């Protein structure tokens, strides 16, 4: 009897401690009350008998910097929120482990094969405008540059969509990218540190259009019942952003991390994405009705990922062209 009590006293707390904790680094808006984080945490914990802990670390690039600073001591098991512009840089660090299983049911606009990164959502960059104020919109960067429309964009040196835009123009125009930027410079009202500043300024009426995503109007439509925002479709094709997750080599919860990466492509994860992250699910999961009225552009040509050196060159070209 004594032994039984003794064992029970130890086992009870021990039982709850034994549940593993999976630490996932992600970006700020993912973990906010309106982001996908809370719902995904609930859904995953329901089936894993573990604790899922999201740690927000700025944005994708800041996350990579943080992992490099932490080195071996990082507590991260999984990183969620890198994108195709950072994938090659991330891969070169050698801190990510190959996938245990090939993700199933992917339905991206482009073919996807990668042994390290699992895509969890995707979207196209696009210029968003207020359709009650603007009736004629340009159908290309050329037309935009020729118009007297004002745009507010993000700085590629401090913002992920800003970097995407620089890479978009580079992919569409190659060696002429600098020329396009120079012609665009009188359309650019200003360049902000991040997406929030730019989008806030656009909503205040500081510019006719803002660099955002094709799905931004869906947010206003679904969450605010406001159909006044639209995205412009460009004939060059649009920059495709694919957001990915990966497991760290140093993870002490490898099996659990593999389980989470597999969970990403299930409906329990994918169904949360559209109305919280306002992006398209990486699998063919259903999207809400409001998404149906969004533009569906083609991806701009060229490779999906970019090397560290090419990325730096594109940013430098952007700075140089707009500083003229």
């Amino acid at each position, binding site marked *: 009897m004594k032994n039984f009590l003794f064992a029970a006293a130890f086992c009870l707390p021990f039982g709850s401690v034994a549940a593993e904790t999976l630490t996932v680094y992600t970006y700020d808006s993912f973990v906010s009350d309106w982001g996908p984080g809370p719902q995904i945490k609930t859904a995953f914990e329901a089936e894993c008998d573990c604790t899922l802990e999201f740690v927000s670390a*700025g944005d994708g690039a800041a996350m990579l910097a943080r992992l490099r600073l932490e080195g071996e001591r990082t507590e991260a098991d999984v990183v969620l929120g890198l994108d195709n512009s950072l994938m090659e840089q991330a891969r070169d660090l050698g801190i990510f482990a190959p996938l245990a299983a090939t993700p199933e049911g992917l339905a991206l606009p482009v073919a996807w094969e990668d042994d390290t990164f699992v895509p969890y959502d995707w979207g196209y960059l696009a210029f968003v405008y207020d359709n009650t104020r603007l009736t004629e919109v340009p159908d290309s960067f050329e037309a935009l540059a020729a118009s007297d429309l004002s745009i507010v964009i993000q700085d590629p040196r401090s913002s992920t969509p800003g970097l995407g835009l620089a890479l978009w123009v580079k992919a569409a125009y190659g060696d002429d990218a600098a020329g396009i930027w120079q012609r665009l410079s009188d359309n650019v009202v200003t360049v902000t540190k991040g997406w929030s500043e730019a989008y806030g300024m656009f909503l205040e009426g500081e510019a006719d259009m803002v660099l955002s995503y094709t799905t931004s109007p869906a947010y206003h439509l679904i969450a605010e019942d406001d159909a006044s925002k639209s995205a412009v479709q460009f004939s060059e094709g649009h920059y495709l952003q694919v957001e990915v997750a990966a497991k760290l080599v140093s993870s002490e919860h490898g099996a659990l991390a593999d389980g989470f990466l597999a969970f990403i492509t299930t409906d329990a994860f994918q169904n949360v994405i559209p109305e919280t992250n306002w992006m398209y699910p990486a699998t063919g999961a259903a999207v809400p009705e409001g998404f149906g009225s969004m533009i569906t552009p083609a991806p701009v040509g060229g490779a999906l990922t970019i090397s560290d050196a090419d990325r730096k060159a594109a940013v430098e070209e952007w700075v140089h062209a707009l500083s003229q």
Partner: protein
Amino acid sequence: MGARVEPVSRLTKPLGIAALIVVAVLVLAPVGALLLRAEAGGVSAAVWPAIRFTLLQASLSALISVALAVPLAKALARRAFFGRGLMISLLGAPFLLPSIVAVLGLLAIWGRSGGVSDILALVGLGPLDIYGLNGVLLAHVFFNLPLATRMLLQGWQAVPSEHFRLAAQLDLAPRARFALFDIPVLRGAAPSALLVIFMLCMSSFAVVLALGGGPKASTIELAIYQALRFEFDLASAAQLAMVQLVFGLAAAALAFHFGKAAQFGGGLGAPFQNWDKRKGPKLLDGAVLVLAALFVALPLLAILAKGLVGLAALPSGLWGAFVVSFGVAMASTLLALGLSLALAQLIETSKRGGAIELFALLLLATSPFVIGTGLFIIINPFASPFALALPITALINAALALPIMLRILRPALSRVQQDYGRLAAGLGLSGWARFRLLTFPQIRPELGFATGLAAALSMGDLGVITLFAPPDVETLPLLMYRLMGSYQMEAAAGVALVLVASSFGLFYLFDKGGRGAGV
């Protein structure tokens, strides 16, 4: 052989040196840590335009802010009017706005679809285009004109009212008054204000980008951010941080060279009364006060209006974020207060006081990203930086407030020493009793102002917490940015209002407490 300076307490030296060590660690260790960890890299010639623009905008911002602050501070110093106390308090408000909130507030007035453009449109003029250097200066003047005004106002208020009576009695002409009061006050206070504002603007970058109109308006701070975030080029970040330190050092040396503490002697603390009854100066002062009030208040009102709408959409995490922000602000304020008093006393009594002060001022020229990243590198081998996120945030916020507090407190402590040092020494007033009975009551206004600034600055600061942001810990600024990142602009405006109101409330409590019922 010269005048002997008695340390005011046996603890002056040990406490001062301890504070100095904290400063030295914060200025030097992060840069050192970055250099040690750096693999390859370094700055390229591409950074030159950013350096040029940084110096240009920071110098102009400082000069314009202080130049405009002169008539405003003078008007506030010599006029009594209804709401004067409130206006002096409100001058603390812009300084403590998070940059994105300030930018949106300014744009509501000065933007292409702001109030001024709307009025211009009525008379058929095109919208205002403030983007570019103009916009950067507008924002920096909005932030710093009030700060400069408060710093100059302290100078004018140190002139004993007996002097003004004398001037009134002698019926001194404006020019004579200018030479007698204004020049010494400005020589005492203006270099300090110029220096602080120059350094603050040097490390500004979100505002510079948002209103600068393009990559031409890039600052060193942006290059540091880019190096740390995108390139992971620690060497380059460290080198850029050193460039900032060198500019900070040069600016501080200039300010020290031209600055000269005003020496008016002590008065009997009689309340100030204006004896000048001439009409002209009165009208001019009135105009200055009204314009300044509009300039400061209109963007604040815009923020208020937007925030009130957002109050309906306040998120559930608000209270928790408030508690965290408030706790961090209090801790960092206490720390900053202790550090700055200890350092100021050491500076006052040490033969190398000038050099010590110069060194401490360098904290203003350090990049919060560099301090944050440096501390991260230093702490990481021993402990999880996440676990220490809040103490580190409090420490860094305290470090950034320290130089400003020092610049405000030091002249006040000098004045006490000069006017009452011998009396106190003769009476054996030292240590805690000296602080309680002499120093505290004498420097109370400055102490209140400086403490209020430190508290509000820490409350509204986002910078460092993002580097360390632990799970489940949210500060008000972080909550605001996260909301914005999720399209929740209205809720974000509501949180911004709560943030600004609580920062300002803290500032007001300390500042008002310092100024007491008078002034």
